């Protein structure tokens, strides 16, 4: 193939190709497991590249910590537990094909992993169609457990319920208050707002204004001025990605006080991003290192994770960690490695989240009995922060018609 009369550059190119091609093809292809103390596999489909890659990667780290701990203590049913990661590139179509690969190639017991609702929905479609159990650790879209769901379970409370919880919180702080809504146009935010609006009517909370930003917005000064001019008691702030920081800062630039701001969720980087300026603001969460009453597993997770990743874990990491333990429990309850038996065990399980002791029970559609904390920021440093619990609420997944509000 390489001939003397070919130009130097062409020869060079062939070498380059050969090397790159060889590199790509010498990688071990996905292998069907050899029977021999065969591991029990969880197909962990996560956003490891693309826009959501930070969350997918951090969740995977937490899941891997759980995997190591479980295997160090003898595994599950005497066999090793294996979290098999697969990148979905934050693209739903890729997530579907990752699901296909894990199902047909690796023959996993169950899927898990997505931290983003759209990729989760893609896996959901495959799972329901092909009867593969799917335990969603972090993805809040109600559609994941819509009536008729047979194989999917959602660990994180749903987004519309979040909106419900926010209104209940506002109601407790100041009955009859007004709240301004300002947020980015993503499915998650829309679902939360749908919940807010529904419950606000029933709780006597007024919506002062409702401002939506397109997904790639950079600046919110004008809209912040509009919010200020309505003089709301509270402001619900939720920007997409880094825009959240910009949005929060600009709202405060225009005179809204931190104590008036409610963020629907606070992951660690977001809280650090809001910074000392946001001390006094509230955020919703499901797990936070500031919470009192964490048990040994919870404290252990915080220590191990901080050591491994360099930053403190929050609710995303917690759900991924707790989901792996949940799966372990369900396999042990089923007594065997069988998809249908596993699914049935999950349906009937009545246990607690391993880190916090909060109950884990699923309804007939796979939705979990839900809960939320609201914390108030007290101190923010460069790498750490302290918050204080302000409110806690539990509710049934269908306390409000979530499936109609976010179809």
């Amino acid at each position, binding site marked *: 193939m390489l001939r003397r009369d070919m130009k130097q550059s062409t020869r060079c190119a062939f070498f380059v190709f050969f090397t790159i091609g060889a590199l790509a093809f010498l*990688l071990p292809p996905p292998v069907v497991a050899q029977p021999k103390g065969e591991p029990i596999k969880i197909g962990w489909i996560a956003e490891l590249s693309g826009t959501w890659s930070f969350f997918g990667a951090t969740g995977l780290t937490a899941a891997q910590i759980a995997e190591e701990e479980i295997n160090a203590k003898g595994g599950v049913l005497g066999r090793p537990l294996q979290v098999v990661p697969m990148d979905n590139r*934050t*693209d739903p179509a890729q997530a*579907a094909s990752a699901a296909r690969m894990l199902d047909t*190639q690796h023959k996993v017991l169950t899927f898990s992993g997505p931290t983003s609702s759209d990729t989760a*929905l*893609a896996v959901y479609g*495959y799972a329901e*169609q092909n009867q593969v159990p799917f335990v969603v650790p972090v993805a809040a879209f109600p559609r994941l457990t819509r009536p008729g769901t047979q194989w999917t379970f959602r660990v994180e409370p749903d987004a519309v319920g979040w909106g419900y919880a926010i209104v209940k919180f506002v109601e407790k702080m100041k009955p009859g208050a007004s709240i301004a809504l300002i947020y980015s146009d993503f499915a998650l935010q829309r679902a939360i707002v749908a919940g807010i609006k529904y419950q606000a009517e029933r709780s006597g909370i007024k919506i002062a204004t409702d401002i939506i930003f397109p997904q790639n917005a950079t600046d919110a000064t004008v809209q912040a001025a509009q919010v200020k001019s309505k003089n709301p008691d509270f402001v619900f702030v939720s920007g997409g990605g880094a825009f959240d920081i910009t949005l929060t800062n600009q709202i405060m630039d225009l005179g809204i006080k931190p104590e008036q701001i409610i963020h629907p969720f606070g992951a660690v980087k977001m809280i650090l991003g809001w910074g000392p300026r946001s001390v006094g603001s509230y955020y919703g969460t499901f797990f936070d290192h500031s919470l009192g009453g964490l048990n040994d597993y919870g404290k252990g997770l915080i220590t191990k994770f901080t050591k491994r990743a360099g930053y403190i874990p929050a609710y995303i990491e917690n759900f991924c960690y707790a989901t792996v333990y949940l799966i372990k429990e369900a396999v042990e309850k089923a007594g065997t490695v069988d998809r249908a038996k596993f699914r049935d065990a999950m349906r009937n399980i009545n246990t607690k989240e391993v880190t916090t002791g909060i109950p884990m029970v699923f309804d007939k559609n796979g939705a979990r009995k839900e809960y939320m904390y609201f914390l108030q920021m007290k101190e923010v440093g460069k790498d750490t922060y302290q918050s204080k619990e302000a409110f806690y609420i539990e509710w049934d997944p269908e306390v409000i018609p979530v499936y109609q509000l976010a179809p």
Partner: protein
Amino acid sequence: MAYRRAAVVGLVLLALALPFLFSVNRFYAFILGVTYLYILWSSGMNLLSGFTGLMPLMYAGLAGLGAYTTVNLVMKFGLSFWLAMPVGALAAAVVGVVLGLPSLRLRGFYFTLSGLVIQTALTMLFVYIPQFTGGDTGISQIPPPMIPLPGDKSFPLAGVWFEEALAIAALLTVYVVHRVTRSTWGRYLVAIREDDLLTEALGIGVTRYRVLAFFISSLFAGVGGAFYAHYMGFVSPRSFDVLTSMNIWLIVGFGGQGTILGPIVGTIILAPIPYIMQELYLYKDIVYGSLIVFTTIFLPRGVYGSVLFHRRARAAAHSAAQGKSEAARS
């Protein structure tokens, strides 16, 4: 000449046989299916970019239109895929021409940039009309196409048969592009690409032929989109954004635009990489990008394009040498 024909027949048979050879391993079979799909797409784009000299960045958006139209017709109206797909492709082609028409009279790179704008608008459209597209969260559980059988039964096009169907579709596309470029009309396209002012001066309607090329190219975009949707079982706006257009165009440019085999070579090299490297997710972008950069530096005509170029240069040098020695002898 005969040996060339045999080679073509051999390749066609190989293409048809591969799905069966790969069918034991669903993972590799899937990669094969995706490769066929991209061969279809890149050949369609090659018609426009390679032969007409235009770089259509809205290609993915048109594919999306074909996909969403087909999916809606099948899932909401119960139409058979085989009826819905042509409708979807036609919709893509018509919209493509309507949107592209004003920019077709733009030269070279302006056309490209306007394609970029139109693509961005189309992606936004897909996100903001959820009744048609399911918005951000997309449409899932798309059923495989059904093949009607005698006796009122039908059987789903799944597994190895879907890959086979994709192989056939890809082969047909390549064939059509080949016929178009060999035709008189195809030569006009090349003339337009080389020097559109001169061609215009010679009385050949430049815009008219560009529109025609655009129409056919968009048809293929739509066809590919429809197949993609049903093969993946899931579509979302992100499947059809600028980066997708650029990836397809990259494959064409990398393989060698303006040649028939170029897109095929490009697809075979580039399309499997993201899947094969799925476990090395941190490096795949870097590998992919490096491959492209190296190719542009060392093989600016694309992989296959460079091979062709060298072959012709050698043939020309050879006949020139022959001519000299003949002249010397006489």
